[in-house]
């Protein structure tokens, strides 16, 4: 839930609307079939909301107002309702993010193992400088994230869907080489 003292820094990512391009629907053809198949396991269409939003984010990289509207139509709920759900969860991007979205855990167990220095190294080496700000070349966005459920492997870092363990300030340049 994003309110109160923010763990991901105060800076916001610049909003955009598909770079001025018209929105092309996600749920056509195979994607539509995939969603309908998934809906078969639930007694309500609304239960497909989180999965549908994931599919939009997978296809478009983020969830725009147009994306929310499409999900609303497909599942038979209102766009305002969809927005209410999207804003509750931290993993749906409501703005475009860098090509590589980097999330560093800084909650206490990782904090006591030096996670702050890992964050610093990422901010420096990516050129982002600040949390939540996409680097000038559009490649990286770095945020702090709350406990990733891998505290024994401090510091865990997510780069897009890749889950990395035991990252240290020293291994940050090596990690970034893989995501150029």
């Amino acid at each position, binding site marked *: 839930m994003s309110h109160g*003292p923010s763990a991901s820094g105060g800076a916001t990512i610049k909003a955009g609307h598909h770079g001025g391009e018209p929105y092309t629907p996600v749920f056509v053809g195979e994607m539509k079939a995939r969603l309908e198949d998934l809906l078969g*396991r639930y007694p309500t269409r609304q*239960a497909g909301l989180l999965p549908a939003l994931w599919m939009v984010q997978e296809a478009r990289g983020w969830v725009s107002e147009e994306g929310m509207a499409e999900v609303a139509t497909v599942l038979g709920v209102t766009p305002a309702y969809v927005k209410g759900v999207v804003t509750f*969860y*931290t*993993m749906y991007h409501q703005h475009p993010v860098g090509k590589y979205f980097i999330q560093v855990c800084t*909650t206490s167990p990782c904090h*006591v193992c030096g996670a702050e220095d890992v964050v610093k190294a990422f901010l420096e080496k990516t050129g982002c400088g600040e949390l939540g700000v996409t680097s000038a070349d559009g490649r990286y966005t770095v945020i702090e994230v709350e406990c990733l459920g891998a505290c*024994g492997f401090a510091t865990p870092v997510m780069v897009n*869907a890749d889950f990395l363990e035991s990252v240290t300030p020293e291994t940050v340049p090596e990690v970034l080489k893989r995501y150029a």
Partner: protein
Amino acid sequence: MGFPHTPHPRETQVLSTHFGDADARSVDGWKKRGGYQALANALGTDPVAIQNVVKESGLRGRGGAGFPTGLKWSFMKLGDGKPHYLCCNADESEPGTFKDREIMRWTPHALIEGCAIGAYAIGAEDCFIYIRGEFTEPLQVMERACADARAAGVIGKNAMGSGKTVNVWVHKGAGAYICGEETALMNSIEGKRGNPRIKPPFPAVAGLFGKPTTINNVETLTAVPHILNRGADWYKKMSRPDNPKSTGTKLWSVCGNIARPGNYEVEMGFPFGEFLQDVCGGAPKGRKIKAVIPGGSSVPVIPWEQAAAAVMDYEGMVAAGTMLGSAGCIVMDDAQSIPRQAARLARFYAHESCAQCTQCREGTAWTTKILERICAGDGTAEDLDTLLSIGDNMTGKTICVLSDSCATVVSSALQYFRPEFEALIKRTTIHAVPQVVAR
């Protein structure tokens, strides 16, 4: 990555037996290791008989609250003509806890087997495993394993050729600690914001989609096939002779300032001091353990001396002034500042509050602000009392216990480490109330 450690001789491996054994991840590999035998037997048994074995074993919920599992199952009214549901809680977001992730990555079929048995025992045809969105690898492994199990006829219509229907599905979360709370989890599956619900009605009466539902943790369900295979007596024996209330083995996630972090499986009743020193290797070289949070960030922090004398079971941890919780053990050495860590944890709760309850929304935010200003050297003498009184107002007054958890961090830190806070408070003046000055 994250390859499990070589087991320590003092560990008792039950759930962790096949950690690191890649071959155990397939249906056939699992069957070769004796897997799915318990499910085949269970599907030919009366559900109530299964509930009774689990009751008899003494198994208690591993998600944090430690509620007796068999008893929970018996709240489900069999044959009421309504669809029933089982939810498997794989949200694992409690700081310090990372055991369910290991179970899912290495032994996905162990969990599916537990889910299928659990579902059958409560009269449910569908089980949803709710996995947090950040767990990309466990999600992939579990989805694949469910598809494989379905294709092999292990689950689905006519599961194991029994004529019974048992489905196991994976549902992916989207980033919210609160969705680990059982009613929030159900809302999340229903496609809603993950706000906890007011109880009653309890899930066994009106849960997922308004139908009778049971929610169990990953580790809880994974223990069930072992209990059915080896018997309640075998399970009960793994306990302190004088404490039959905590039975079986427990996976402990150990992290923070410890020489060998990882997941360790020991029997209930293991001495905590020896566990941390001998099994986990003690503090990192040259340091000393100062404080321990044994059961995930929501339980009281205790000083090392107190932890060293504790016994690792539900009652033992209570006797030591804390709780077993999710057994996510966070170790802090003498280089750590307790106020700073309390502030960081308060920030966690403020970030994760679902904001339905005023006491929680405001309380977590103010607790964080005050702790952060104390750490910044701007604290005042009355701040500590203010923190305790805020904590008082956050305890026992909200829809779920996230609010209480934040207060626990602060009250326990102040109880045992007050001098550290006081040392940070250099100013003694009362905060001036801002004056409206007439111009």
